[in-house]
């Protein structure tokens, strides 16, 4: 199958509009002003799905879709957000911090879930000029991946799954809600598939290889951090998503980071940002600089982060070069100390001159004891990514597996 980039863009926009309808419903019913933060479509393997959903307790509803669009959806709130909404929506219902959600609370969540998802689905039905059937909502209160509709994880085991994800946030309150839609693979693949000679089409199997590349790059970068700091690390999340270019900066949190940014100058071209939030940067500096440094981090601390960024960058590039079987040219990593969104904005701007959407590969390096975490963003130039993938023999994906095994 070949995936048409433009049609993936169209579906991403539908999901964004759908999420805006859902956010408007949430605002209408609760009076809490909300906005849609990010909408993306992600190609996930089973491991990606487990990484993304692991460890969080969700409350929400699951709704199945049939008719013109078949698949599964879930609307999930983290537990505290669900409790805040219940407080507004069904005063008197029991949904406190330590309480079980009682029947009133559950039906309140089911009702708002049903209304929000109705808004989400309407836009798709309009675009596809078809009707979409929704099953009645099933209330769920579960940990991690269990919030996903049944079977989604099993399907991810056999093949990658497309996951549409929209995050909604309240302006003045700590409320986060997520909409997930997992279209039925076969039908969606057909919707996406392009003719063989389509200029923008990317072969699906190569896209999954690229997903693996990200993981391998992040793992090598993480190994290098471990050997520098002596702190054990792991790659928590590593995924390939597809977002409108103006949403790229929003994928970093609205806080100050330290790290390095560099530009790939060959094929694939693009940008790599390796970012630590300030407490994490402090931990890294304390682990690598053998003396007490002042608060906040000065020149000495920044140069330690620069060094860490250089070493992680070279690990990441080794991972990519291994898959692409080619050398990768890049500018020297530049130190940056600023707001995450500001750091990513020039990258989005430069790429945005020639593309409407971005493939964003984001990974998070974490430690078992939570000493620090590090966010890695690789954002290839669309055209050059396509060239790199065209040049990539699919057999190399087998080689990738072999190399991965020899690594550990």
């Amino acid at each position, binding site marked *: 199958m070949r995936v048409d980039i433009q049609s993936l863009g169209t579906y991403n926009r539908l999901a964004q509009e759908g999420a805006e309808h859902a956010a408007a419903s949430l605002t209408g019913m609760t009076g809490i002003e909300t*906005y849609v933060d990010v909408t993306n479509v992600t190609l996930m393997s089973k491991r990606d799905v487990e990484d993304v959903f692991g460890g969080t307790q969700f409350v929400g509803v699951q709704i199945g879709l049939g008719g013109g669009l078949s698949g599964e959806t879930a609307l999930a709130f983290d537990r505290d957000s669900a409790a805040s909404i219940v407080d507004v929506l069904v005063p008197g219902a029991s949904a406190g911090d330590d309480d079980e959600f009682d029947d009133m609370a559950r039906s309140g969540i089911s009702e708002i879930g049903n209304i929000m998802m109705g808004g989400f689905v309407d836009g798709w039905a309009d675009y596809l000029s078809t009707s979409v059937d929704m099953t009645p909502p099933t209330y769920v209160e579960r940990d991690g991946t269990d919030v996903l509709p049944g079977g989604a994880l099993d399907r991810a085991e056999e093949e990658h799954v497309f996951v549409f994800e929209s995050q909604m946030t309240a302006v*003045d309150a700590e409320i986060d809600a997520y909409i997930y839609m997992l279209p039925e693979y076969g039908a969606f693949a057909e919707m996406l598939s392009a003719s063989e000679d389509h200029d923008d089409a990317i072969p699906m199997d190569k896209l999954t290889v690229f997903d693996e590349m990200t993981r391998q790059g992040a793992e090598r970068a993480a190994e290098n951090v471990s050997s520098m700091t002596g702190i054990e690390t792991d790659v928590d999340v590593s995924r390939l998503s597809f977002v409108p270019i*103006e949403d790229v*900066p929003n994928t970093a949190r609205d806080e100050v980071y330290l790290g390095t*940014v560099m530009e790939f100058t060959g094929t694939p071209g693009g940008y790599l940002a390796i970012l630590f939030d300030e407490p994490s940067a402090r931990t890294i500096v304390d682990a690598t600089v053998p003396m007490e440094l002042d608060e906040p981090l000065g020149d000495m601390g920044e140069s330690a982060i620069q060094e860490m960024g250089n070493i992680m960058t070279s690990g990441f590039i080794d991972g990519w070069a291994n898959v692409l079987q080619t050398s990768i040219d890049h500018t020297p990593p530049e130190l940056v100390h600023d*707001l995450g*969104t500001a750091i990513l*904005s*020039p990258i989005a*701007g430069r790429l945005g001159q020639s593309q409407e959407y971005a493939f964003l590969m984001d990974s998070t390096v974490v430690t078992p004891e939570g000493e620090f975490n590090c966010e890695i963003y690789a954002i290839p130039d669309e055209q050059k990514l396509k060239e790199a993938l065209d040049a990539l023999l699919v057999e190399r994906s087998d080689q990738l597996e072999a190399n991965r095994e020899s690594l550990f």
Partner: protein
Amino acid sequence: MKTYGGASSSRARKRVGIADFAVTTDGAVLTTSGLGSCLGIGLRDERAGVAGLIHVMLPTAPEEPPNVAKYADTGVDAVLTAMRDEGASPDRVRAKLAGGSAMFEFDSQDEPIGERNVAVTRTTLDRLGIPVDAEDVGGDSGRSIRFHADTGDLRIKSAGTERRI
């Protein structure tokens, strides 16, 4: 990105996303964060009590842009139209600018985006006869801004410092 709710909100603060704008008629504080090479453009007709803020990412729109708010040239037009719909008179509107930095070497040579965002915005405002009262642009740091629609103050946070123009 759009925000829902609005004028009745008790805090009267409106958040503007990237490639997005907001217009207020009730003196709300319009905010946007994480301006790197992007540019924040605050427009205000004091007498009509109408103000707008836009966060643009690129200087010049292609033909039939899917999102006019992404570009300086089409974005300024879009905010101004929305302000006119709320009773602003274009010949009374005045502007303030913040953002347009060059954060990296790779974005500093060969026509930096931030610089071009500022240049195209100035040209567009000039064509529309809108004077720029104050600006805080360029440099190599990101900015977060709050545009106070009631007073016209533009408050800027950047690299740990705060200033007001």
